[in-house]
């Protein structure tokens, strides 16, 4: 439930970001250049809590990677990035940002329609109308330690041991009391007959021979 509300919040926030973004340019042919086009885009990491566009300090370590390492680009302070001289074709853009999970983006650079660029997230096949890349989720690298509680001690092996001991100490006498004295006597008799239980007597064959 908590994660649902969180994701809902994220979704709403993304919607909010979209609504106040100036329409960013997704493509543009390079003037005067013979080979290739320029891909412009923007990476937006919503900083939770503040409504301003203050990108977190982590942004300086964000890398945008074209075609699995063919080229690596970095973000400007406003989150924009660009790849120049990209030939027409279908390309893959990945964003490597510590702490965030980004979907790779399929980018179609059209040759027939110069400079026409289409982008779609490959994880969920969602098309992008504007070339703005948002993290799909935040990545938590560490397990969160649960706060101290009595239950965790009770659940631990030692706790169970203690619990068992308590049961034996306080409940067993009660059970013994409720037992029929005759039955008890019979059981004691049986025990005496068997003598000291040995390993041999535990084996079914040996028991039969007894």
């Amino acid at each position, binding site marked *: 439930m908590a994660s649902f509300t969180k994701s809902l919040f994220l979704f709403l926030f993304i919607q909010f970001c979209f609504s106040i973004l100036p329409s960013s340019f997704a493509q543009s042919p390079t003037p005067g250049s013979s080979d290739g086009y320029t891909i412009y885009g923007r990476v937006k990491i919503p900083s939770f809590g503040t409504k301003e566009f203050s990108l977190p300090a982590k942004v300086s370590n964000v890398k945008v990677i074209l075609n699995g*390492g063919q080229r690596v680009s970095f973000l400007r302070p406003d989150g924009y990035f660009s790849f*120049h001289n990209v030939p027409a074709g279908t390309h893959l853009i990945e964003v490597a940002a510590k702490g965030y999970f980004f979907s790779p983006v399929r980018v179609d650079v059209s040759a027939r329609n110069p400079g026409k660029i289409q982008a779609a997230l490959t994880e969920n096949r969602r098309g992008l109308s504007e070339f703005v890349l948002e993290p799909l989720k935040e990545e938590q690298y560490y397990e969160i330690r649960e706060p101290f509680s009595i239950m965790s001690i009770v659940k631990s092996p030692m706790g169970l041991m203690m619990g068992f001991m308590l049961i034996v100490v306080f409940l067993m006498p009660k059970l013994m009391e409720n037992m029929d004295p005759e039955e008890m006597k019979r059981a004691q008799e049986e025990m005496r007959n068997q003598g000291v239980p040995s390993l041999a007597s535990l084996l079914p064959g040996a028991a039969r021979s007894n």
Partner: protein
Amino acid sequence: MAMAIRVFLSFLLFLSLTNLASSLYEDQVGLMDWHQQYIGKVKHAVFHTQKTGRKRVLVSTEENVVASLDLRHGEIFWRHVLGTNDVVDGIDIALGKYVITLSSDGSILRAWNLPDGQMVWESSLQGSKESKSILNIPKNLKADKDDLILVFGKGCLHAISGIDGEVLWRKDFASESIEVSHIIQSPEVIYVAGFVGSSKFYVYEVNAKSGELLKNNHVALPFATSGESLSVSGDKFVVLDDVRSKIVTIDINNGNINYNQKQVSDLIKDSSGQAVILPSKLPGLFALKINSQVLLIKVTNEGELVALDQIDNTAAFSNALSISEDQHVFAFVQYEDNKIQLSVKDVNDWNGALLKENLVIDHQRGNIEKIFINNYVRTDRSHGFRALMVMEDHSLLLVQQGEIVWSREDGLASVVDVTTSELPVEKEGVSVAKVEQNLFEWLKGHVLKLKGTLMIASAEEKIAIQKLRLRSSEKSKMTRDHNGFRKLLIVLTRAGKVFALHTGDGRIVWSTTLHALRKSEDCEHPVGLNIYQWQVPHHHALDENPSLLVIGRCGPSVTAPTVISFLDAYTGKELNSLSLAHTVARVIPLPYTDSTEQRLHLIIDVNKHAYLYPRTPEAIEILKREFSNIYWYSVETDNGVIRGHALKSNCIHEIVDEYCFVFRDLWSIVFPSESEKIIATVTRKSNEVVHTQAKVMTDHDVMYKYISKNILFVANAAPKASGEIGTATPEEATLVIYIIDTVTGRILHRMTHHGCQGPVHAVFSENWVVYHYFNLRAHRHEMSVIEVYDQSRADNKDIWKFVLGKHNLTSPISSYYRPEISAKSQSYFFTHSVKAIEVTSTAKGITSKQLLIGTIGDQVLALDKRFLDPRRTLNPSQAEKEEGIIPLTDSLPIISQSYITHSLKVEGLRGIVTVPAKLESTSLVFAYGVDLFFTQIAPSRTYDSLTEDFSYALLLLTIVALVAALFVTYVLSERKDLEEKWR
């Protein structure tokens, strides 16, 4: 009862399934892992010390790293690792606040914010021709409003605004066929100078405001020139003629170009050697190197050459540094029998030395290759100097007042190969001296720990606990431990230096620059290639030290001469080194050792000869015995051929060499070159341990794994689609997968992925192979698994056959026997691009496997092999679920807690190595790139030992409570007994 067990088992399975991700708590960081950051061999360095505050040096390196280092301690303030093709050509500071880098052959210009490394702007420079790239930033001490950055790259001169990276104008020189080598800026005019051909020197004058070509001028020299020309001052250049006997001085004063020439022999008596102009930029001076001597020559205003001094045994010259309006200084280093002398001199005042210091530098670091100087003002207003030195082993030193202030082992940024070695056994009596702790300290520590367990510790106490944990652990001891966690990681770097790193804390135990891999006359560009375990002493001879074999080559080509070297693994001492008469194409460690536990190695050269090492009669004896059992294969990527080989006979030479063998081709597989091109081959690790050959299926059926050491995975792509992503369409791309037996050359399995292309990364383990490739149709990365089973042994499951002895399990397994193979395969989507894949290896091979995937974001993800199981189905039956089969999903999950690098990055990741610990559940992982990262992982959790955070205090507490309860109940029962008796 059976039902109960079943329920219990499924409960256990459920528990284990929920824990597929092996994760870490934040306070456990650094307990078992370490991370080291490097930058690589420094190419350029720029100091930034003008302003008060943090003093830093900005560097660019051969690993394409741009970094800002703290000048006080050598730590990294910030660092950016550029793409592999994005080679940095120049670095400088503009406007006093931006770091400007020129990269990718002068086509990308970036500005980084000086304090925090944030990229401010990026400019793409267009051009049509490959050319030298020059970055020129005018050195105005006062930040000008309109600061111009001049860049020459791709045959064009660009003027770029330093504020926002806007290209103000560009002038194309591509049509002029000029090799531009100098850009000289004066306030109004920019001079662009260079040679056309080898004898015509052109100078163009360009308007600095508009980029308009004002005039051009040239001079034709009556002879050809050789080597780079050097700009001595704003209007004078020097260059050598093609026979290197004359120095030509070119003067471009006032648009007229004049030249003078002078014989080298006029300046120096003994001018027999080859003269080279050193590329140090010194105003009015230049350095000419002849043999091992360096001649400093002054160029007077009239263009006359005057020999100033002759310096012997010099190592490196720095560029000039201007310390005031008219004072320029430079530094050079000299070797004087075992001593290193650093001198700083004024360019104009030759006789007085500003600084003369003797240095002591560990000779393991090799020669000084580069030196950069910087000055500071002492309290008495005199100038002090500090020098940054780049050594032969790629390390970086800062020297100030005759002492090394800090050093960085940046050779570790270029690890080439890794092996491990066990540590010495702990001897009695030599154990590390126990530190006496007083009782109070001991008690305090335990109270702190208990507080931590009960989660009531404050922030400072938590830090104290962390420190206590790190200190008390014995992980950094120099002896072998029971669990096998402590080992030596022995890494070979590109510089030919060998380092031994302790797995406990990553410190350098020893480092050795191999004598054979030092730069010398006959070994110009030594490179380290491989490192192998040469001798691992037997359990009975533990007092002997293990040794290592290092293979290196004197140059990048396969035909370059080879050197091998033997090292002691505990001390790093070079035991022996050999310069081989033959080349090295491949090294095959054989599975045989001689009586001294030296492993036999075959070295294959390019002329199809195999050489046996060690060169002892005993080794020959062993080889003769196993002569017919030695097989190997070779992959010819260019021809698309894979061949299998076996030894034939001794070489037929004039000189009889009984350690040399010729070999024959047993088989060859020729792939159709028009449709397939080999892009990846992977084989099993030779030291991998397989625990069980059989796999029990859900229906109590048994499948036998096809386990063979001689098995090869080959991935072929269509030639059109063998390039990078984005160059091919799905229609023209196919990926063909082969699994080949390398003894018989039999193709065991073949599979085609239509619409897929490389790069392929694969890992082979036991009977399965996992590979990663790109699916063009879905435009996503995919990972596939192939599991190979031996069908011919499948009918062995009848118990009567075992009883009657009619099974074929005892029949010898030979590669010549043709088993029936069945292969199962499944594919899944995977989100990220991949840089490396490895699989965990454990001591006995019992523990389940995890794939270690180095992603494009330079992180290492541990992915359970159970996610890559061809038996996964959409709706697994109850029985299958109990066995741990995960319902099929179209993509592999990326659980962020299972990144073994947690919040760290192994920048520039190139490889992952796994080594088994002695403890079966644990595997040691070492990832290397520009950074190094080491950790221990337990793919099925540490089922054979208590976890690190096991609370002994709680155990003690329980025991005490139990004992107390025992007494209380005893007393109570006694009392009750008494009461009963009274009654």
